[in-house]
């Protein structure tokens, strides 16, 4: 496991907020030279501390007003290939995330839509047309916040 000191932790926190921050600016804020800061950032990135860089967009400003989480239970396990289902569901542009979970459902999907009638279209034409869908449960997202986590 990666050994982090206080400065590394501060860097992880800062990069989580803004991946585009320069080594110079981050170094100045943390009392490091630009090259020293750059080396630390390189080490963190190479150790795989960041899974991905994400463009943070205001979905409502882009008129995606509705986010729905769908719990999907597959109908005929064993007969439907999980790979086929996963490939088909991942190809739907409105489906942002697909998680294979253990519990009440088999899959948990995050779906964005412009409004409820747009969501209905995605649900009927795309999701319900997927191979092997048995039960569905929908929860409309009201609020969401990302926390910094134990770093």
């Amino acid at each position: 496991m990666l050994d982090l000191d206080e400065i590394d932790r501060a860097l992880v926190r800062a990069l989580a907020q803004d991946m585009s921050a320069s080594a110079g600016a981050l170094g100045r804020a943390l009392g490091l030279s630009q090259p020293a800061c750059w080396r630390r950032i390189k080490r963190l990135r190479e150790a795989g501390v960041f899974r991905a860089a994400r463009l943070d967009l205001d979905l409502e400003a882009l008129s995606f007003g509705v986010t729905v989480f769908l719990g999907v239970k597959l109908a005929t396990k064993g007969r439907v290939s999980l790979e086929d289902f996963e490939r088909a569901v991942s190809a739907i542009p409105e489906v942002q995330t697909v998680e294979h979970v253990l519990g009440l459902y088999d899959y948990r999907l995050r779906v964005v839509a412009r409004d409820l009638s747009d969501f209905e279209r995605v649900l009927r034409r795309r999701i319900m047309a997927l191979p092997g869908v048995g039960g569905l449960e929908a929860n409309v997202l009201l609020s969401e916040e990302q926390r910094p986590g134990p770093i």
Partner: protein
Amino acid sequence: MLDDTDRRILRYMQSEPEAAMAILAERAGVTATTLSRRLDRMRDLGVLRGVRGEIHWPALGYAVEVSLRITLDKTQARAFDAFIAAAREVPEVIEIQTFLGSVDARLSVIARDMKHYQALYRERLLTLPHIADIEALMQVARVKSESRVPV
């Protein structure tokens, strides 16, 4: 508010948030000047908030991720607010969502291992206020994970 050029820029940025500006301009078929003007405008409008880094917690020693679906006791007038405020105090809670549907809230919780998770669950999570029911979904795999929207 956004035209086709803006949307095209956002599409390329979504697929490669860390691409250099020169490359982005070339892909989107605009000059560097146009690109920077468009980006500034979208930042001012609040559409484009920045580029965030998504932390890969296993690299930092947090191997377990659990999704807790929570039903709150709605006979308590301030159940949502009190629950969310208390959940924010737990550092291992990395995401808090609220819903309209069959569950009221969901927490993403990370832990170093199952023993750590057990301790967190008993001492910090079950003790959160106004919980009527709680149910855990263990993540098996992340099949698709994108913040991308079909702009």
